């Protein structure tokens, strides 16, 4: 005959196992529902619409610390603001590519480009762009000059540029190049000339 305490123990263990199974089943359902309802916050690249056009991108090269004009064909929309955004995104794509001449941090993006007052352009970078940027005067100013020169070469009548990070003003790009100022394109173009010259 099976001892009574053994029967009780088996019954208790059985009830506990059943309870645990029900609990796990319910938790699994809850997790599935939570995951389904969480919105995907990953940015989705906006497809550029429009015919391909030849543009000039000013590409930074860490090797030699230079800035070189480079012809490229990219699809550009008709709107001035959208064109400016696509130009800079094409430039950032080069920097994020495998054989990048001027490596940017993973996830670097142009959030938007805004044409404000006549002649004023506001470039809004994402936080990953600034946070992942390498620190150094030359390496930071190559990025700044590359962005400004590319816009200036392809969008006429730009006179001033302001750079924001995540929609806010930031003291510097990565500890050196000043982002609090409004830059005169003519002065930045003088820098571009210096950076284009062989060291």
């Amino acid at each position, binding site marked *: 005959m099976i001892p009574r305490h053994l029967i009780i123990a088996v019954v208790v263990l059985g009830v506990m196992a059943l309870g645990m199974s029900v609990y796990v089943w319910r938790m699994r359902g809850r997790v599935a529902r939570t995951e389904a309802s969480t919105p995907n916050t990953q940015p989705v690249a906006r497809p550029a619409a429009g015919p391909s056009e030849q543009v000039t991108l000013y590409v930074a090269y*860490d090797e030699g610390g230079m800035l070189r004009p480079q012809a490229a064909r990219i699809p550009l929309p008709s709107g001035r603001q959208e064109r400016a955004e696509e130009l800079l995104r094409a430039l950032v794509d080069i920097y994020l590519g495998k054989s990048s001449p001027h490596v940017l941090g993973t996830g670097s993006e142009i959030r938007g480009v805004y044409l404000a007052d006549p002649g004023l352009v506001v470039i809004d970078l994402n936080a990953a762009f600034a946070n992942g940027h390498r620190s150094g005067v030359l390496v930071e100013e190559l990025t*700044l000059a590359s962005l400004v020169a590319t816009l200036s070469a392809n969008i006429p009548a730009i006179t001033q540029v302001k750079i924001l990070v995540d929609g806010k003003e930031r003291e510097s790009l990565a*500890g050196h*190049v*000043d982002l*609090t100022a409004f830059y005169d394109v003519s*002065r930045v173009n003088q820098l571009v000339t210096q950076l284009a010259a062989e060291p």
Partner: protein
Amino acid sequence: MPRAESRGYEAIEEEENLKLFASSRLAQVLGRILVLASVLVFSGPNVQKQFSVYSKAANYSVAVVERNGTDYLGLLELLEPLGAVSARQNGDHWKLRYNDVESEFVRGQTRTRIRGNDFNLPGSFVLENGRGLVPILSLSTLLPQILGGPMTLNLFGRRLFIGDVAIHFTAVVVKTDPPTLVMNFGNPVNPMIATEPGKLEMVFTHDAVVAPGSQTLTFDSQAIPSATFEEGNGVAKLMVTTTVPAMASFSNDGRTITVTPASTPLVAAHAPPSGPPALPATVPPVVASRQPGAPVRQRVFAVIDPAHGGDERGAALTDQLQEKDVTLAFARQLRELLGGRGLSAWLERDGDLTLSLDQRAAMSNASGAALYIAVHATSESNGVRLYTALLPSGGPNQGWFLDWDTAQTAFEGLSRTTAASVASGLESQQVSVRNLSAPLRPLNNVVTAAFAIEIGPESDDITQLSSPQYQERLAEAVVSGVAEVRDQLEARRK
């Protein structure tokens, strides 16, 4: 008295009471409108309210929040820098332990218990997300019980002095030509200084400066007729009235501030977004000795600014090597070698100190030096780069006041000449060098010849950056380049 007559008196009395009531109501309404109008007129820009504490342990400020029209403070934030403090919430009850003192507060209640005794607060206790808030007015009741010991609470100025920490000062005008106002403080002070026509304002946020005998000091001087002391919103302000543009300089390790009529254009202090430039107590003395009738100004030739420092390490050159350490070591080499050629130089930081860019520019401008050199280091590229300011778009200069963002404008040419001379010096030592402009603050805020040097290793061996031999070689080349243009630099210095 007949009954009818009595009712008549009652009616007149009632009518008079009504009139009195109506007029008092009218007076109240008018009074409220007047108060509201005064608040709207005099409130000015929306300034963050704060409460400052000065103690031997720390000087700090705590944000003041408004609840139901009353100013409140977080009790935990207030006490944390002063001792061991912890809080525990149990429903509506909030228990606070400061060192060995137990206190208990109840949400929405004015009654509180400290050291086993009951006290009434002038307003109800607020409990928000585990954070206990008490009305500022209750501090005069609470703090002596919780902290014990002597303290002075200035409720109007929102300043609390714990122990014997007050800094007293004297102010006298020395009748030299031009006359100068000399203020001596009991301890080193570090106020923010702003100038505008007719006024030089010093704001003491973390200095326990207290009022002199009188709120208003008058001086027998046409150029500096008076100074006024005010306290409010956790700060003390000393406003010096001047009839000519004036500038302040520090000496005696920050214990003496000298206000002198400016002989050179002032840099507008309104422009920096973070407020007027503050001069830290480490500013070297610009007044070597000062005796009535014989003021002597001893100015350095060059100011060297080792970039970064303190909380701001700069680039991580290797796992162990930080940019702030390399810049300091190189700056010290520069100072020594400049001194060897009879060119006096001082460092804006001679240790691991956090300085803002505005402070760095303000220190250089206050020194009257002929040259400003910012030092940077990088592992991203080889050799040396010299940078002069790439000026941003700026505002117009206003009279004596230069636009802060483009203050370097008048010195652009001389800065480039100096950088070119330094480049020649480096090339003569077979060092790879490049001359560029850069949007690198505070070059654009400096009112003297200015350039930045970014040193990199000669090869891929980054540890070379910390090599004293390599640094000395570069520093010697820089100093020889500077020495070449010494006369031009001195000539532009006023």
